């Protein structure tokens, strides 16, 4: 059962990310990213990380992507042709199938090394993936990286404001 769910949602997330980079319509790209984020959240649930999965949907799919879509709709970009459209479709397909072949090869090798899903799940300690588990680790062992990440995000926001303002002036 878990294996079936894993393969279905792994495939959806891969397809979603392929559509994301290949579709001409920016709204379709944004929505396929939502699909990818959602299927990744399902994969997190399979790994018993319920909290991470829900936060992923809540923050990325529910808030950040809505902002993205908001901007895309506000500028009303319709079927904006992509810059690198010069690459012909057969070439794209060729690259795609090559990548699929390579990844398929690695998957077949991986099958022998990766333990089945069920054994991976059982080996986790008890508070793993719950709110308590994530919160405790986040505010004790990983406090410094956590705070540094938020500083990094503030820096990124400031940078965006500076760059955007320069263009206006």
């Amino acid at each position, binding site marked *: 059962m878990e294996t079936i769910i894993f393969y279905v949602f792994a495939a959806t997330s891969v397809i979603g990310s392929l559509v994301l980079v290949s579709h001409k319509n920016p709204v379709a790209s944004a929505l396929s990213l*939502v699909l990818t984020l959602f299927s990744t959240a399902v994969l997190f649930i399979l790994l018993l990380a319920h909290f991470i999965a829900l936060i992923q*949907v809540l923050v990325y799919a529910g808030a950040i992507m*809505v902002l993205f879509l908001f901007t895309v*709709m506000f500028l009303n970009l319709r079927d904006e042709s992509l810059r690198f459209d010069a690459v012909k479709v057969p070439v794209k397909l060729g690259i795609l199938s090559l990548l699929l072949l390579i990844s398929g090869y690695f998957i077949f090798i991986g099958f022998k090394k990766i333990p089945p899903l069920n054994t991976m799940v059982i080996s986790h300690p008890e508070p793993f993936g719950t*709110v308590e588990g994530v919160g405790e680790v986040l505010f004790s062992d990983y406090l410094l990286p956590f705070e540094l990440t938020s500083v990094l995000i503030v820096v990124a926001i400031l940078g965006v404001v500076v760059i955007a303002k320069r263009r206006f002036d």
Partner: protein
Amino acid sequence: MLWVEIGISVVKIALVLFVVLTLVAYLSYAERRISAFIQDRLGPNRVGPFGLLQPIADGLKFIFKEDIIPEGANKPFYILAPAFSLVTAIIALAVIPIGYGFNTTFFGNLNEPIHVSLQIADINAGLLYVLAITSLGVYGIVLGGWSSNSKYSLLGGIRSAAQMISYELSLGLSIIGVIAIAGSLRLYDIIDAQAKVWFLIPQCLGFLVFMVSSFAETNRLPFDLPEAEPELVAGYHTEYSSMKFAMFYMAEYTNMITASALAVCLFLGGWFPLPFGGWFGIDIEKYWYLPPIVFIAKVFLMLFFFIWVRWTLPRFRYDQLMRLGWKVLFPLAVLNLIVTSAIIVFV
């Protein structure tokens, strides 16, 4: 044993779907009757006794209406949008518990009694699940507005995106006080923590922020700018007709049910009948059907409150809406959070 559990889950899902969709149909009837009462009119009273069959007539009419897809609309997204709204609205209800559940052997057909809980899924972070799924609901509205290829729809969609993001913040913050007191994100534990006193009393500020934000999140009247009819015709669903329009409508009412049920779970004591004192020594194991009755009665009261407010208050202007969200509700929610956590830590 496994098959029994799957069977119970399927029955529960079917039951919730049936009850919710019927309730949605009758909410539209209640809305029209109550609005008529408030405005000193009669309301629909022709189909069946007291007009009680009106929702069926409405449903039939929706099904047989012509389904128009406007020219220049983005067809896949145009079809996807109402379905997306309705699905996200309905699955959010999956984690709402309405009672303790009961043990049964199905009239002696099982060897040992099995526990039937009165919710579909018992998720450890159930509250987050509701927030996450309802936050996805905005895509239906935004997509519907964008794909219709109409300026009114587009404006409605953009307004709803901005409004929902703004109010989701204060909604989420207003809940954290409750989570801090209950010490859990599981809705079942949160309700159980209210046995002594409803969270409405220690968290009255949080409740205020929560209620105002959930009115905004459900696009109900003081905040129904995404569909403000004097300015935007009908907002994001201007171009929709037939069953697709009905799906948007059903999604709105389902969101109202979710918001009411969430308010009952978090602040109004869930299945405890009075603000103090829990069950007064009633044997809940025996009378297991009492909690669901109390819970559902409270949800009905909240739904009535939603309708009542809609026909009492006028609509905000857009800048007033944004000012209220960011400059009043958000600071209030932060203040509530700081005071609550200070009391928990120091007292």
